[in-house]
């Protein structure tokens, strides 16, 4: 069953930034800039089996994606954060792949929104 929620809910995002177009553009730019680093930190933590680092990196990405109303990325990052907190690293590689897929679907949407704003 596919998730009916949008990859990026622009309406919710615009309400979140109070209709401030300048802020919206700035936030989208920051997300595109920070996302590769956040993903790299998560992958490194999974590879190194560092539960604390995984929890922190996934938490930060979840927070940022939350402001963008990117539900799929939020859910996938939340799962990784939980796995890190509970030290269940055996499940982490699969969850990281799931997150990577969600991010791969989100980034083009953000890029499009960024160009349109």
């Amino acid at each position, binding site marked *: 069953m596919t998730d009916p929620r949008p990859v990026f809910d622009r309406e919710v995002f615009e*309400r*979140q*930034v*109070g209709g*401030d177009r300048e*802020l919206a553009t*700035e*936030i989208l730019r*920051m*997300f595109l800039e*920070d996302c590769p680093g956040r993903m790299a930190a998560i992958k490194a933590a999974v590879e190194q089996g560092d539960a604390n680092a995984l929890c*922190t990196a996934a*938490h*930060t990405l*979840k*927070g*940022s994606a*939350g*402001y*963008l*109303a990117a539900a799929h990325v939020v859910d996938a990052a*939340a799962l990784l954060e939980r796995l890190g907190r509970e030290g269940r690293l055996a499940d982490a590689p699969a969850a990281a792949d799931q997150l990577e897929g969600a991010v791969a679907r989100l980034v083009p949407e953000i890029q499009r929104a960024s160009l349109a704003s």
Partner: protein
Amino acid sequence: MKVLVADDDRIAAAVLAQTLKRWEFDVTVVGDGADAWRHLAAASAPTLAVLDRMMPGLDGAEVCRRVRQEMPNANMYLVLLTSLGGGGDVVSGLDAGADDYVTKPFDVDELRARINVGVRVIALQDKLNQRVAELQAALANVKQLHGLLPICSYCKRIRGDDQYWQQVESYIAARSDAQFSHGICPPCYEKLEVEIEEQRKLMRSTRKR
């Protein structure tokens, strides 16, 4: 009003800071708990702070704990930013000294309502502190008029803490809001009248001689 925003996620910090600026707050943004603590411990510290619960190094709850332990009299309203579903975070954050919490990503109307509560609490606490200071000052004055006062049995002067003898009225006036209007009471007036009459008689008899 000054507000401190502390979040290691620059996206969260930017959205929050801009929102607060739109509401006319004077916003300072920092990226970690240690920096937040430095700002809150400074002389001209903000009275309201929104702190991310989870930050590297000093987290938001730890900043709250330090503020309450090391600055127990500070009139500061501390709001924690917590993650969705982090129930335990909320309890431990409030136990650490936070006044309230907001879940990330925040709902704009809810944030506004909670921040307004903070502003109201700070204003009330300010009024209360002012009233306590006024009462303490009044109490200090009253205390000065209590205790054992050395008074001269003849001239009725009072000896002050500086060992100088003062007129009763100047002594009391210096230690209270009382003011004196000078007059003569009836018994003194009668005595004085007798004295004056005697003086007159004396002067008349002197002139006759």
